[in-house]
């Protein structure tokens, strides 16, 4: 059965009636079984809607998404640095220059009898922690972060300011995530999710620093 109040029941349910309207409707509900029943059903509809589970697509959409955004394979990231290409004569000339420089450096070292500080090869992948456990105070992690930060600092002047800002912003975000995980772990040290999350964030920091160091080195 439908009466003048039936169409206002949803608004009543959502708390959108004015005070006088609400009072009048409540007075009506006290004497109308039909509206009380309808209101209860509407309430159940809302409850059902809020309890709906999300379901993934039946087919994995990632390969199509990856193809459309230019990720040719599952684990290949979009290239972040400029691609360089050289002709064969250029490569040969570069080899000669490199050989001369290496020979000259060796000669200087032998002549002076001193050992210069070895340069940090920013394009070389440092011994990866990617597959090793990472945890606060891990000496290898701290050492790698310090090395990479020095390499980035050295190449910082060669990066444009917008790039530096993006890198620094991303590092701040990751550092915040690391601190958050460490703080949560202090209260719950055995929580496997938090341990995994912390390790992931630390790996991400290394990855980002490596990318930044490579970028700085590539532009030198």
């Amino acid at each position, binding site marked *: 059965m439908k009466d003048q109040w039936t*169409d206002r*029941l*949803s*608004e009543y349910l959502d708390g*959108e009636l004015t005070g006088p309207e609400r009072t009048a409707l409540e007075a009506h509900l006290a004497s109308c079984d039909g509206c009380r029943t*309808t209101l209860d*059903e*509407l309430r*159940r*509809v*809302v409850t*059902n*809607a*809020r309890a*709906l589970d*999300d*379901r*993934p*697509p039946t*087919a994995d*959409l*990632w390969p*199509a*998404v*990856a193809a*459309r*955004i230019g*990720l040719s394979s*599952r*684990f*290949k*990231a*979009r*290239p*972040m640095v400029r691609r360089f290409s050289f002709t064969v004569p250029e490569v040969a000339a570069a080899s000669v220059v490199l050989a001369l420089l290496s020979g000259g450096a060796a000669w200087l070292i032998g002549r002076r009898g001193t050992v210069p500080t070895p340069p940090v090869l920013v394009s070389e992948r440092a011994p990866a922690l990617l597959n090793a456990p990472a945890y606060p105070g891990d000496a290898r992690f701290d050492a790698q972060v310090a090395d990479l930060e020095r390499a980035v600092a050295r190449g910082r002047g060669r990066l444009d300011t917008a790039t530096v800002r*993006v890198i620094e*912003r*991303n590092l701040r*975000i*990751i550092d*915040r*995530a690391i601190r*958050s*995980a460490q703080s*949560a772990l202090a209260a719950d040290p055995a929580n496997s*999710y*938090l341990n995994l*999350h912390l390790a*992931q*964030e630390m790996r*991400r920091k290394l*990855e*980002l620093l490596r*990318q930044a160091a490579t970028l700085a080195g590539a532009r030198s």
Partner: protein
Amino acid sequence: MELTTPGVATLRRDPDQRALGDAETADAALAASGDGRAFERLYRAHVARVHSLVRRMVGPDHADDIAQDVFVRAWTKLATFRGEAAFGTWLHRLAVNVILARRTTLGTERSRYADSADSLDGVAGRPAAPELSMDFEEAIGRLPDGARQVFVLHDIEGYRHEEIADMLGIVSGTSKSQLHHARMALRRHLER
């Protein structure tokens, strides 16, 4: 804690989820700098929610295509994500925009919001026994476009009528009316 912010009403935030939110913000930053793995992690974490939203809003036929569009658009717009809100909230709003933009192509135009009471009654008025046990999702899918979209945005996704009216280009009163008609139709398909 249940958040009341529109559009994130279904997100609950506890310490683990805050940590997860930080991780997603970091992934979003990495993805914005070109990290495909980070973007895939975000895709895996959100595809069910995005796909469900699309499926409920436009039906199953175009859901895969539009869900793909959402993630492609997200990839191109990652630089605009500032981390001020949760990544899921940002992605969700972007998904709604993509879906609404596709309505025109799919023929779901504003005129459809003038769904007649007859068509809504048609959804409700199938009282044959098998219908009583109809899956609630399927019943939502059988609502007329306008009523279905308002119902999904309000009752499932937590948007307010004013926001829905703004998104759909209708007035707030129409949104309220569509919502009530949708609920009235769906009450026939409640579990008995």
